[in-house]
């Protein structure tokens, strides 16, 4: 696989990882904006804007966009997170130009008021849908409690109130500020014709004004939860309780982030991990996981647990005991090697799928302007040592003051 990069005069980066045996081409625009870049006045605007991008440009209607993507055979999709908004599609190689052309034009949407009003109803339904299903908002509540006043405290979808109050002019301003070519990356992976990709980018995106991107608020992360202790979300009809607990972990620019990933696999993967054997295999928890999430300037270790209401606090305590034992140094060589094998195998298998590579390569470039091949990622995983894990456990104590939220039928409340 080869990596290629070119920067347009207006600052838009065009990158590609070309795989000679790939059968498909994945392309995407990676926009460096998300909920952390919002204020109270535009809370939820990044995600709402992601929907509005599919509602058309001055020349192309929303229906036409949908028809064109379906006619290319791949369909198109998008997602918004705290830090990124990503638009992507996978097509057969002969459709590359068509796909880049349409995605590129969409980045300058019409943002028509009538479409805005209709789509607002869809966003409100999306908020209600997630609110009706596990973990019943406990994850958003927990992140808010952990981060306090930090920009990462804000939920991606916004709230019914913030979306209802949002006006189309505020969204137009937000788009102008955040979709500058310098904050965007056009990435492609798989069977990519790179000269044609750059040519399409020049044609479609070359005229975008090279406005200085508005700077991103970067705070120091809280090293312990801002709002500590336990909060409850009451859903009287819930069958199980759903707990989320967050403590500080390394962010994505920290050297500890790779060992942190291995630690999370060892302690809390969906099978074969310590939480699995101690809480799930025994039939006590429906789900128990320990994950590492990293952001530009912050990181989290997240414990997720679902089980019967009476068991939730005892099982959280058991999880804490498991973490304490690991921190005290009882990780065996065998389980360390299995976790390492597992991560290495994931890297290799994901490397075969152009769309998976698109996300890896696009987000990495968008955040830190570096490229990591599959072989590079494999080397990183294979170079992690037992000592690295001990260092992470020492530097990011899992018994640090945490934010915990439990959603369920009420428990002791």
């Amino acid at each position, binding site marked *: 696989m080869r990596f290629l990069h070119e920067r347009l005069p207006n600052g838009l980066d065009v990158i590609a990882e070309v795989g000679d045996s790939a059968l498909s081409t994945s392309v995407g625009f990676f926009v460096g904006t998300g909920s952390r870049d919002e204020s109270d006045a535009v809370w939820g605007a990044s995600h709402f804007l992601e929907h509005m991008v599919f509602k058309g440009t001055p020349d192309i209607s929303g229906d036409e966009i949908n028809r064109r993507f379906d006619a290319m055979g791949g369909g198109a999709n998008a997602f918004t997170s705290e830090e990124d908004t990503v638009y992507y599609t996978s097509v057969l190689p002969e459709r590359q130009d068509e796909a880049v052309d349409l995605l590129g034009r969409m980045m300058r949407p019409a943002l028509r008021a009538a479409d805005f009003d209709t789509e607002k109803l869809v966003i409100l339904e999306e908020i209600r849908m997630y609110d009706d*299903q596990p973990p019943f908002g406990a994850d958003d509540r927990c992140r808010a409690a952990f981060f306090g006043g930090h920009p990462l405290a804000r939920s991606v979808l916004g709230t019914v109130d913030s979306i209802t109050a949002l006006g189309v002019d505020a969204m137009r301003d937000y788009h102008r500020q955040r979709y500058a070519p310098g904050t965007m990356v056009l990435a492609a992976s798989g069977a990519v014709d790179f000269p044609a990709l750059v040519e399409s980018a020049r044609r479609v995106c070359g005229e975008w004004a090279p406005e200085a991107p508005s700077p991103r608020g970067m705070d120091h992360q809280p090293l312990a939860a801002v709002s500590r202790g336990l909060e409850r979300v009451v859903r009287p009809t819930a069958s199980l309780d759903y707990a989320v607990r967050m403590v500080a972990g390394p962010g994505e620019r920290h050297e500890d982030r790779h060992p942190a990933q291995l630690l999370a696999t060892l302690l809390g993967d969906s099978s074969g991990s310590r939480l699995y054997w101690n809480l799930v295999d025994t039939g006590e928890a429906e789900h128990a996981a320990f994950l590492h999430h990293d952001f530009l300037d912050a990181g989290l270790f997240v414990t997720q647990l679902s089980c019967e209401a009476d068991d939730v606090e005892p099982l959280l305590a058991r999880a804490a005991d498991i973490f304490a034992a690991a921190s005290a140094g009882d990780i065996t060589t065998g389980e360390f090697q299995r976790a390492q094998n597992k991560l290495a195998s994931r890297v290799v298998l994901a490397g075969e799928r152009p769309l998976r590579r698109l996300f890896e390569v696009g987000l990495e470039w968008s955040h830190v302007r570096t490229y990591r091949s599959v072989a590079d990622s494999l080397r990183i995983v294979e170079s992690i040592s037992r000592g690295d894990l001990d260092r992470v456990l020492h530097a990011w104590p899992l018994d640090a003051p945490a934010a915990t939220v439990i959603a369920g039928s009420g428990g002791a409340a």
Partner: protein
Amino acid sequence: MKQTLHSATLDNGIVILGEHLPDLESVAVSFHAAVGAVHDPPGRCGLATLVGEMCLRGAGDRTSRGIVEDFESAGVQWSQGVSATHTSFSGAMVARHLPDVLPIYADLLRRPTLPADEFPAARQMVLQNLAALEDDPAHLVMAELRKIHCPAPWGMPTEGLSADVEAAGIDDVRQFVADRLQPRGMIVAVAGRIDWPDFVRRVDALLGDWPPGTAADVAGGPRGPRASHVVHDAQQTHVAVAWSAPPYRDEASREATAALAILGGGPSSRLFTEVRERRGLCYGVSASYQTSRDFGTAVCYSGTSADRAQQTLDVILAEIDRLPGTITADEIDRVKARVKSGLVMQQESSAARAGAIARQWYHLGRMRTLAEDLERFDRLTVASVESWLATTLPPGDLSVVSLGREPLEVPRAIPA
């Protein structure tokens, strides 16, 4: 694009299928035993799922932990699943590990130890999963739709019923394994960077001397139409609609697939356009073609706020009614484009191909080449879809389910 498909049948009836994908580093393997939820005995709904879990709790000389550790030491991304008709064990890995991993699968299938001391935890795990599903409204509405619309026992929940699982014992598990977990009907599929003759030799050595077994097939009961409402206290109401469609092996399944894609298969589909884009009624709305070996089903789904659910259902039913006589050539072209890219992109995933060839064998008794699949969809026309619609609409057996605080009005022709 070159494609190499292989098949072999062992003396005991086990069918081995292979696809060589030389550009991949990986290989994916899957073992599909012809035993699933439709074989659950009366009063033991969920037994097959419980058996699938128990097979992982000891096999041959391996303990529960040993099985998982052996998989993970070889870097296998493994999974186990029970469907209506099959119990499957699968895995994807870097190709060189395959020979070391095959004996683990042979142990799981032939030598599950079914230890009594592991049974309470396994049963509790299945019960926990059932409790979690009670919190998932989209799952609940589809489960109710299958229950009222599909012929028994295909409508029964694969994951089980709590009361039945609670009543099950280790003897039920052991009896079920003895009666049903057999080579008869078993399919083994492998795809990716494979050495076909070596693979067949190894599977034959591991499974070839296993007596074929005599378990009988299950007959289906009658099906829909029915209407049903499930009371669920939440902000959104969920609606699901079904009617009969031909099974996959029937040539007309191609037209059914296309018609359902046009109705609700993507962002340019009728339902997405009319329900979501035009009216903003919901976040999720879709239609799809689903198939068992002997019957197919057309399914529509949406979830929306309670006060707009009636309108959502009315628009869905109106769009179904509007299909005949209105199919356009552009819509047919979009279906063809989607099918073509889906088929080509499947070749990038060993796991997707292993699954696809196993499914084709189950439904058709043979594999289709990529060229044959593509050519089959090239024959799709406006006229062929219209002629299928003329035979199926209006549906003779429409079923409608709602789930939410209040019931919805359904067309009076449908019995509750």
